[in-house]
């Protein structure tokens, strides 16, 4: 009898608790700056949430790169440490964990949440509807709602094209390896490979790009093995689109060269890395938060998607290694100038190189299966065929 009584009490208490919650369910703490319509939110009232798939403390890799961007944004805008809420190690296959992490950011009063991994997309969409006065900014995906949920990404293919020039000039065997996380069905990887291959072709029409797929975004062992297989096949430059620097280490250990990705891999591997294709997320994070402060973005009314470029500073290649072939710097400079003045965007437009050749497919790519494909960098996800000089291994 006592137990039943205790249970009834517990039930009553819980009901009371929930009832209490129900009344002010959607009330958000501390962001009242948008009443004036477009007035923005004062810098001191800004709070930024970041959802990381890993732990930035590891010092390299995906989450670290994104977090460097957050740190840069914080410095640029002069935010204090407690204006940044980081949720680390949020598994992007665990929908509940994602939702909990984002809700916690909202609880702590965040006005804008950066969700850095692809798997967070659906949860962003759902929570954006539930919390119309919070911005949800999702990296690398494709969904958005125009009012408080956008996506951000960049024309990384521009940097890849430039790195392809370095690889094409360096190769002696005319075989360049490329370790890719995903196969041709993945537009992000495929467009990157195509851009790289075009860069190679622009300076070395005889070279081929041999692609090996690991089917995983993070597979230290598999990435190394893939690189080794490519080297064994005669490749003397190894480029990559995957998380660890193992392909570069394999290249160095076999006395060949490489092209890194994500962060400057010369730091860990040395001069065998000719250059690295890098993201500079700080460029976007600063712009986005600035937009919220300025009132350029007003929750519930407007927010644009972001697709950054070389010119925006969102992406780049790192300084060339001393081991890069002679003339690389000049060849890259011509292409970079064309990209920056808008006349050339890898998949669209053309430019003239030092020898007077016209470079660029101008919207119609010749594929390695003999067909052609209409291409456009902004629609990278639809590019699921390889450029003519690509061989899948």
């Amino acid at each position, binding site marked *: 009898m006592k137990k039943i009584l205790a249970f009834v009490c*517990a039930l009553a208490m819980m009901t009371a608790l*929930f009832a209490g919650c129900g009344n002010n369910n959607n009330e958000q703490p501390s962001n009242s700056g948008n009443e004036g319509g477009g007035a923005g939110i004062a810098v001191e009232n800004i709070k930024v949430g970041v959802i990381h798939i890993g*732990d930035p403390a590891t010092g390299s890799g995906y989450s670290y790169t994104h977090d460097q961007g957050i740190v840069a944004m914080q410095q640029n805008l002069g935010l204090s440490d407690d204006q940044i809420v980081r*949720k*680390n190690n949020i598994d992007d296959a665990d*929908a509940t964990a994602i939702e*909990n*992490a984002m809700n916690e950011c909202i609880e702590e009063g965040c006005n804008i949440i950066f969700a850095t991994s692809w798997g967070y997309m659906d949860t962003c969409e759902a929570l954006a509807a539930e919390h119309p006065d919070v911005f949800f900014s999702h990296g690398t995906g494709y969904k958005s709602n125009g009012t408080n949920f956008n996506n951000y990404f960049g024309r990384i293919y521009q940097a890849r094209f430039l790195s392809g020039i370095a690889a094409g000039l360096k190769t002696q065997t005319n075989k360049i390896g490329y370790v890719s996380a995903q196969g041709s069905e993945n537009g992000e990887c495929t467009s990157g490979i195509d851009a790289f291959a075009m860069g190679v072709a622009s300076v070395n029409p005889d070279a081929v790009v041999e692609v090996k797929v690991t089917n995983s975004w993070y597979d230290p062992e598999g990435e190394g093995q893939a690189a080794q297989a490519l080297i064994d096949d005669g490749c003397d430059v190894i480029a990559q689109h995957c998380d660890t620097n193992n392909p570069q280490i394999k290249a160095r250990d076999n006395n060949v060269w490489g092209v890194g990705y994500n962060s400057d891999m010369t730091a860990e591997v040395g001069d065998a890395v000719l250059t690295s294709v890098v993201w500079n997320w700080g460029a976007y994070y600063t712009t986005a938060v600035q937009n919220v402060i300025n009132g350029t973005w007003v929750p519930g009314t407007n927010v644009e998607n972001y697709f950054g470029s070389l010119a925006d500073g969102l992406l780049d290649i790192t300084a060339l290694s001393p081991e890069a072939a002679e003339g690389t710097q000049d060849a890259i400079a011509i292409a970079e100038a064309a990209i920056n003045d808008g006349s050339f965007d890898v998949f669209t437009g053309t430019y003239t190189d030092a020898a007077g050749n016209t470079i660029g497919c101008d919207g119609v790519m010749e594929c390695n299966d003999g067909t052609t494909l209409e291409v456009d960098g902004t629609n990278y996800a639809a590019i699921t065929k390889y450029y003519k000089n690509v061989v899948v291994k």
Partner: protein
Amino acid sequence: MGTAKKEPLLRVVKHAELSTRQSIGLRVLAVVLALAVGGLFIALIGYNPFEIYATIVSGCFRSPMAIQATVKFCIPMCISALGVTLAFKMRFWNIGGEGQLIMGAVFASFFALFCSGMPHLLLLAVMFIAGFVGGGLWGLIPAACREKWGTNETLFTLMLNYIALYIVTFLRDGPWRDPEAAGFNKIARFAPKAMLDKVFGVHAGWIVMLILVVLVFLYLKKTKQGYEIGVVGESRDTARYAGINVRRVVLRTMFLSGGIAGIGGMVQATGSDITLSAGVAGGVGFTGIIIAWLAQLNPFVALIVSFAFSILVKGSSVVQSAYGLSTDCADILQGIILFFIMAMEFFIRYKLVFRGHREKLPVKTAADTDAASGEKEAEEK
């Protein structure tokens, strides 16, 4: 005689069965000790333990949203604890709550993904039953194999967890892959119709949880089937002696046990995840075992223990972002607390006696009084 050894330094001695009050006291002591050692750990890595503990608690209750989140953590933990409670009462060591929960989610997800044309409430009811059946079948397999071939249920249920997990991965990468997800494999988010409604800001799973607590309690305490579970758990020979069909009881109970975990999976998938993901169980099936055990297989206590666990989980998540404390540190803290509570279970049954310590005799024991009265009788004659 070369064996003039000293008395051993430490001996393990069984104590008398402690009263309920004493054993509760010991458990409370364990929690206090755990907090103390956890505090020491926090201090060692350079934080103020009082601040951290305060943040854990305030993090759970600082706002309605925080409370809702805490309750949300509680739901799958409590439901899976209820599931294993049934099996454990029968002394069937069901370590497969995780897999049963996953299979419940898989079965329910089938209807969420492919039958979303049904009316909302009907769809929910169908998914609920599907979740129950899915988990139940996953619990039935090890039970049937044990009854038929005498397989080891602990290993069997454990292995089925991984199979269930890989079934989800297979469905995600293959037949149920969301075609819109370019390159990244995932299962599509459920249609709004297939979502569990929210009541007071938390998905209705909490109501399911409370109802299940009461049902499991009544089932075990008041029904004939519950009584049979108790008898089979104590001794299969006694059950046979009483004319109980042991095989039927084992199969039925494991179906129910898995079924309850399956309901947990359905609730988690349709209430919280709104999709089927590999992280749907996320270790909750294992936490449920610890909870059921700490609760001494009492459903109401399991509810309380689950809530305590969700405070720990939610609170340490807040601590992680508030202090930049790595999530690993929060796990270590949880581990310390669990370690102490489990170690205390040992001391509820045993004590250590040091060398040189002489047992003081109880002043008056049953044996004494009986013997004395026997003596008296003898004298009278």
